[in-house]
């Protein structure tokens, strides 16, 4: 499959900040499905990369950046915990990929944002 007709999307993963503790065995199962998922995407040229984000962050505002506050998530119930950069055929395809995210059953949410080209 040629990748030329694919466009880039960001998948933004958010997790509820009161997610329960996970036993090692459950973690095991979670990893297995995550790796299988990203590997499957990589094989068809749809996975570009990704990173986790720490919970500590700051928001800078004001004309000269004089206002520095703790991350945007202080009041939020969900924390942005990582992102994937993917290639997808369409928004529909990108949502289908997001819908396979193994974190969903644990309450994770995935925001799908197309990267603007022109």
């Amino acid at each position: 499959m040629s990748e030329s007709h694919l466009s880039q999307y960001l998948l933004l993963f958010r997790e509820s900040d009161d997610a329960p503790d996970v036993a090692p065995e459950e973690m095991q199962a979670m990893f297995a499905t995550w790796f299988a998922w990203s590997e499957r995407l990589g094989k068809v040229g749809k996975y570009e990369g990704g990173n986790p984000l720490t919970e500590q962050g700051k928001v800078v505002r004001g004309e000269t950046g004089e206002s520095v506050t703790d991350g945007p998530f202080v009041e939020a119930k969900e924390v942005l915990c990582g992102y994937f950069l993917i290639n997808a055929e369409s928004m529909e395809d990108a949502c289908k990929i997001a819908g396979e995210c193994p974190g969903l059953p644990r309450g994770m949410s995935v925001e799908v944002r197309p990267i603007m080209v022109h």
Partner: protein
Amino acid sequence: MDHLFRQEYGRLVAILTRQLGSARLPLVEDVVQDALLRAAQVWPYRGLPPNPTAWLLTTARNRAHDICRRNQRWQKSEPAITQLLESTAAQAMDSADATFENEIRDAELRMMFVCCHPGLSSDAQLALILKTLAGFGEQEIATAFLTTRPTIAKRLVRARKFLREADVSIDLPADAELEDRLHTVLHALYLLFNEGFKASTGERIIRNELCREADRLLSALGPWAPAAIPQTLALAALFAFHRTRLPARLDGEGDPVILADQDRRAWDQGQLRRGMKLLSASAQGDQLSRYHIEAGIAACHSLAPSFEKTDWNHIAQLYGQLENFAPSPAVSINRAIAIARAEGAAAGLVHLNAHVDPTTVDSYHLYHAARADMLSELNDPSALSVYERALELAPLAAERRSLRRRMEGLEND
């Protein structure tokens, strides 16, 4: 990466406890749990690192370092811990080699002796092994032992407190106490395996895990020369013979199947061969242990082409030896059953009456079932009421089905 997490948890706890001492087990468990959580956050996005253990170890150690630096009280009372962490930090960098693997094995071995400290009750020893070496969660341990999570949590808190207050050494036991300490470890692994192996309803997966962990930890003792005594080999043989029959112990519905009804074609011949090798290796020297005898009994069952063609004579004889080594009503009942099979019901009944006090086993269904079988074979009319008593007490559906079948046979005669 089958069971990677569970295994990693145990390896990390062992290696950090070895470095920081058993008194700091709670800190170690916390930072290992943190490291695993960190992995859960990072690995999904970046993939599995080339050496997961080293990655987790560095992360856990950094976390411990952070905690100690931040906590003033700790710094005052324990300046040594920061130094310890700093001196060992460099080692973690280059840890993808065979020395690292050896170090982990050595740490696991020491941890096994810590968990099986004779000052702890058997229950506490098993819970501690499962939590620290096998990476079980408290809920999983509770499920495996058919008890509640708070009970297990309390048990673990008390055990950790004991390790701290008694300042239990992470050093391997010295020659003088080696033999006793080793026997405690073997006994704990024996109990752990039995807990997983004994027939009970539900939660089969967790219970099979107990068997596998007990076997894995016993093999971890293997390379350590002082542990290579005949008892260790005999216990390993016993595990292998039991594991031979594991694949046939469940029916399609997940209910346990009693030995007489098992499909012997499903038995694991590889484990059987392993058991035979271990059993003959264990026959060195003049030491006979209960593990030898029990392995012998399990071997007889595993080698028998059918329930009827089992060498009951030999089994009766072995149970006789076991009555001397580890007397219990269950052993005497089993001996009586084997005698009844080998020499006839009358002889079995004589043994039962002579060696088992009915008042101590009145709530034990196998006693009544065994007696009923013998009475029925002798056409004694009281068999029916004894079967009824067994039926009332039998906890497993498979056992009740089998009892009903035998009762119907009685009525048709």
